[in-house]
Every structure is written in structure tokens, then in C-alpha cells.
């Protein structure tokens, strides 16, 4: 009896100390490295995430390396692929197609994915495994000055003819039809993909595969050429100093009523509302040749995790905070002026273009641009093509030269 009592006491003591050790291990300070490839709207969200994480898991510290997604994310990833990946990487949905096949990304747990909308999961899933958690989304199309449209009796254009009529009226009235900042070559690349989505990929979602197989080319495809030609339409109807004008100055001109429209994305909303919180704007898809253009949707902040992290538990806790802390999510959406990709979370900022977005969504006229970005990748292809388009617009190359240069770059058109 006495012996049994000693056994029980010893076992209890062992159990208590094991629990204590486990609790101590849980609270052990952990530092996770994060490489964040940010869009222009995202700088600053790292502080919000740090604050939310510190509240729930004070033992986890995030060591951020924030870089510009367009210029520096890919070089940084290449560097880390040689020396060891950060625990968490934040990029865009299209990055999953580039890095997951290399076997360096970990699958994201279903418990976190289930907190998100299904809409963007398809393009971050490879062979049935999902490697990215899409956190927010951007919309791309033609932002327009609603008040100016109302004053001039212009209707939202659906066809190229409708659009041309507005351009002609603008020019007749001394209004610049389009605001643009072609000094940023990425903006040329971005609008070209918008055009390609509606004139090429909506009709042929595997155009990029066919391009690599030699079945189609930019020099032969009328639809692709039309998409390139829209750049000329913009260039001929924009500010004279577009190749010297930066995005903020360009957005300011748009808000001040110096231009009627701007082919852009949600990243402009932050500037629009910072410059004038009462600016009344809407959005419509850039009309294509067949009059059935869709508004473009781009899954933006996409969280990926390293397959070789030594702190998977801590990484999971970060994912948990990101997917369950709705206050944090609203704060981020309101700050970045972007759309939510988490279930039951709605941004609270006033977005005058939301009613247009809702209308296109209800009509099923929204398309995910990740399709186009996976068919023809950004880094090394779209961004290089944009330089050739700029050279053509500047008169340094012919249109045929620009098309031929895109064709010659076929090997760089796919991530793998």
C-alpha cells in the first residue's frame, strides 16, 4: 500500500514536470525570418502583424526583410535558395507556380486555408497541394472619374467604339483621356497583361502553352498584337510627360481632374483617397474587341512557408494569427485599400468603386489574372516585353521589333 503510494507520487511528479517542460518549451523565444515582397500599398503592414502577434504569442518575433516585389523579390528568393530560405515568404499568388515545383515550399494546413475564400485557392494549388495562403486581392481595370463622366454624359464603355467616342470627346474638350506613368515600366507590363487577359486568355486560356509549343506567336497572333496596340492608344491619349511622371504625381493629376480615366489597379486607391478622401471614382474593364471584357482580379498578398523550417509550430501560430485575428485583417485591408480574401471579413474603408466591383461580380464578369501570369510569367518575360513596348512607343523600335523580341524570349516565358 505504502509502496503504491510512493509510485503514485512519483508518477504525478513526473507528469507535472513534463507538463511544465512542455509549457516552458512553448514559451521559448523564437525568431522567425520573413521575406516580404511588397506591392506599393503594403509597406507598413509588418508593424500591424508584429503588434497582433506580440499580443497573442509574445515569445514569437518576426525578423522582417521587406523588399519591392517587382524588382527584388525574385533576386532575394534566388539568393536564399542557395543559402537557406526564410521561414515565411510573402509574395504574390503567381510565385507559388515558380517556387513550389522546386520543392522548397511547405503545404499550408487545411485549418488555415479554410479561413480563406475558395476563389484564389486554385492558382496556388499544384497537384492537389496548396502552397500559398492568399490574404487579400486587388482589382484591375480602368478607374474613371465618376463626376466627370456624369457631367459630360459619358456612359461606361463596353466596346472599343464606346471608348473611342469618350476619348474623342475628351480631346475635343481639352481633357486628357488617360492618366498614365510610363516612366514605371512595370505599369506598361501591368496594363499589357490586362489587355492580354481580355483579348487573348479569355478566349484561349492555354495561349502561353501554345506559344511555347510554337503553335502561336506574338508576330502571328492578331489578338496579342491588338493587346500590344492598346498601349499606343493610351500613349497617344495621355500626358506628354508620361515617361517622366511617377505614379503618385500621376494619381494626383487624376484626382485633380486633369484626366478622365486611368488603366490601373487597386494600388491607386490608396493614393486617390490620400489626396482627396471624397474623390468619386469607379472601375470598368478595359473594353476588348468582342465587347465582353471582364474585370480583373489579382490575389495579392500570398503567404508561403519554407519546407525546411525548424520552427513549424511557430510558423503555424503566425498563420493562425493571420487567419483568425479579424481585427488585424480589417486593419490591413483598410490600410492597403484592398479586398478581403478571408471569410466573414469586410474592409470598412469607403471605396467608391465597390458598387462597380459588386456589379461585375454578380454578373460573373470577373477573371483571375493569375491564369495569365502563370501562362506568361512576369519576371524575365512580361517585364522585359514592357521595355520593348516602351522602346516602340518612344520610336526607338518598330512594332514588329517589339513583337519579334517577345517571340525571341519564349524560353523565359514559363517559370519552369
Amino acid at each position, binding site marked *: 500500500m505504502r509502496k503504491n503510494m510512493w509510485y503514485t507520487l512519483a508518477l504525478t511528479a513526473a507528469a507535472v514536470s513534463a507538463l511544465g517542460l512542455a509549457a516552458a518549451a512553448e514559451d521559448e523565444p523564437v525568431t522567425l525570418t520573413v521575406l516580404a515582397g511588397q506591392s506599393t500599398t503594403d509597406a507598413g503592414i509588418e508593424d500591424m502583424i508584429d503588434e497582433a502577434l506580440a499580443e497573442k504569442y509574445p515569445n514569437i518575433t518576426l525578423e522582417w526583410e521587406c523588399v519591392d516585389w517587382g524588382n527584388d523579390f*525574385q*533576386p532575394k528568393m*534566388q539568393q536564399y*535558395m542557395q543559402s537557406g530560405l526564410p521561414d515565411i515568404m510573402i509574395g504574390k499568388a503567381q510565385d507559388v507556380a515558380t517556387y513550389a515545383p*522546386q520543392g522548397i515550399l511547405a503545404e499550408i494546413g487545411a485549418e488555415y486555408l479554410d479561413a480563406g475564400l475558395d476563389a484564389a485557392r486554385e492558382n496556388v494549388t499544384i497537384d492537389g497541394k496548396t502552397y500559398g495562403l492568399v490574404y487579400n486581392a486587388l482589382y484591375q481595370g480602368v478607374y474613371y472619374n465618376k463626376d466627370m463622366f456624369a457631367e459630360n454624359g459619358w456612359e461606361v464603355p463596353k466596346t472599343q467604339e464606346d471608348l473611342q467616342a469618350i476619348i474623342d470627346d475628351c480631346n475635343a474638350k481639352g481633357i486628357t483621356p488617360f492618366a498614365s506613368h*510610363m*516612366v*514605371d*515600366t512595370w505599369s506598361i507590363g501591368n496594363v499589357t497583361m490586362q489587355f492580354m487577359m481580355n483579348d487573348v486568355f479569355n478566349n484561349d486560356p492555354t495561349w502561353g502553352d501554345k506559344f511555347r509549343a510554337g503553335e502561336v506567336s506574338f508576330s502571328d497572333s492578331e489578338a496579342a498584337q491588338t493587346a500590344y496596340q492598346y498601349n499606343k492608344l493610351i500613349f497617344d491619349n495621355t500626358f506628354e*510627360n*508620361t*515617361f*517622366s*511622371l*511617377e505614379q503618385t*504625381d500621376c494619381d494626383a493629376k487624376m484626382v485633380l481632374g486633369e484626366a478622365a480615366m486611368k488603366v490601373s489597379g487597386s494600388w491607386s486607391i490608396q493614393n486617390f483617397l490620400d489626396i482627396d478622401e471624397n474623390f468619386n471614382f469607379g472601375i470598368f474593364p478595359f473594353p476588348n474587341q468582342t465587347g465582353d471584357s471582364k474585370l480583373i482580379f489579382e490575389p495579392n498578398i500570398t503567404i508561403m512557408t519554407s519546407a525546411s523550417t525548424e520552427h513549424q509550430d511557430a510558423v503555424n501560430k503566425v498563420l493562425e494569427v493571420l487567419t483568425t485575428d479579424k481585427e488585424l485583417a480589417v486593419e490591413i485591408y483598410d490600410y492597403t485599400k484592398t479586398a478581403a480574401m478571408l471569410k466573414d471579413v469586410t474592409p470598412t474603408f469607403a471605396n467608391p468603386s465597390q458598387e462597380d466591383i459588386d456589379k461585375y461580380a454578380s454578373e460573373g464578369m470577373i477573371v483571375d489574372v493569375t491564369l495569365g501570369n502563370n501562362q506568361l510569367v512576369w*519576371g*524575365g518575360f512580361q*517585364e*522585359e516585353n514592357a*521595355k*520593348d*513596348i*516602351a*522602346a*516602340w*512607343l*518612344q*520610336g*526607338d*523600335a518598330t512594332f514588329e521589333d517589339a513583337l519579334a*523580341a517577345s517571340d525571341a524570349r519564349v524560353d*523565359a516565358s514559363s517559370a519552369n
Partner: protein
Amino acid sequence: MFRQYLVLVIPGLIIFTIGLIVPLFLSLRYSVTSWDGMSAEKTFVGLKNYVNLFKDKEFIDAWWFTIKFTIGNTIIQNVLALLFAVALDSGIRWQKVYRTALFVPCLISAIIVGFIWLKMFSNVLPEINEWLGTNFNFLLFGDSKTVLGGLLIANNWQWVGYWMLIYLAGLQSVPGDLHEAAKVDGANAVQRFFHVTIPMLTPAITICVVGITTGSLKVYDLLVSSTKGGPGRASTSIIYQTYTTAINGRQYGYGSAMTVTLVVVLLMVAMIQVKGLRKKEVQV
């Protein structure tokens, strides 16, 4: 004694070997592969990358821009630096103020210099244009025909003061007796400048010409923050092209071949210049 030399040399040699020699040989190795910079596979392609370079219009255009930028810089920077040095050496008032004002820009990072001149050409100078009611075209970075001029202005603004100091030191070390003797022989100021000052300055000229040439051939950071190689490809230097090809374009092997050509050109240019200019140096 030998052991002491060795102790002094070895730390530097190790750093130099790891930081320069090893990467150089790795570059040579990658340049004969089709490596994409990500995968483990580095397929040997022989000299294919080098052959393709000669057919690559973007590579040739990048070299052409770099050569024009280098020639422009070497001429303008040397002439201006020498003129400023002569002016400051002539005993004018406020010499230290002028010297400081000309030297300060070279303490600023080239990235910041790019931003400064982007804003100058796009916002500040056009605004001044408006105030004055004039119509000068200051949008130099926005046009492929004027972007080179704009970059030369920015680069010269940054570096003229630095090279001026080297010329100034050279001028101050020219013995006064030589000028006196030339004066006695009846040489006027211009003759003294070309027949006494310039020959005595040849070591400084060698340093400045080689420094400016090799520096200009390697231009990259100024472009990143100002023109991003544009408009189009109008200001894409060879290093900019190499970086975008190797890293953004995921053609590490091909990009390495571009690097090797740059190293060869840099070595050749520096050797020719040093040999040519050394012959003209005079010893006192």
C-alpha cells in the same frame, strides 16, 4: 622576415580570394552552362552562351550605351575637374567653400543621386520653368534621345569634385621653379599650362582617366533609382542588362557569360590606358 610578410599579406589574400577570385572562376564555370540560378541542374553548353552574345541585340545595345556613357563621362569629367582645379589653385577667394561645395555630392550614394536628379528633371526644374515663363525641356530622363545627357549631368555633378581634388593635389605639387624658369624663357600663361602644368600632371591624369573609365563602365546604381534602364532600353548599361538577364530572367549561365565579357573589357581598357599614359609621365 618572409614569415612577417606572409602574416601581413595572408588576411587580405584570403578575403580577396573568397570575395573576388573564387566568384570569378565560378562565373567562368557558370558561363558555359544553361543554369537558371534556381535548380540543381547545371547543364554544360560549351561556348553557346558566348556565341549567342554576339547575336543578342539587347546585349549589343547595352554595350553601346555603356561605351557612350563612358566616353562622355571621361571627357567631360576630366575637363571640368581640371578646370575647377586650376581655378581653385589660382588663389581665388572662398577657395575652401567652393572646394567643399564641389566635393560634397560624391559623399552621397549614387542611388540617392539618381532620385535627386529624377525629381530635379521631373518636378523641380519644370516648376522653375513655369515660374520664369520659359520653355526649356528638362524632362531629360523621359526621352530616349536625351536620357544619356541627363545621366551625364547627374554623374558629373556627383563625381567632378572628387577628381578635382586629385588634380588639385597634382597642381599643388608642381614645383614653382619650373613655372619661373618658363616665365624667364618668355612662355605666356597658356604655354606654361600646356608645356609645364599638363606634363607634370600626367600621373594625376592617369589616375583620373582610368578611374573615371572603369567607374563608368560599371554604372548600375545611378540607373536603378533614376531611369531603371529606360525609357524602353535606352539607358540600359551592361551591368544592368547582366543583372536583369541573370536574376530576373533566370538565365544565370547566360548572365555569367555577359559578366566575363565585362571583366575582359575592364582589364583591357585599364591596361591600355595605364600603359599609354605612363609613357607620357615625366619625372622631376
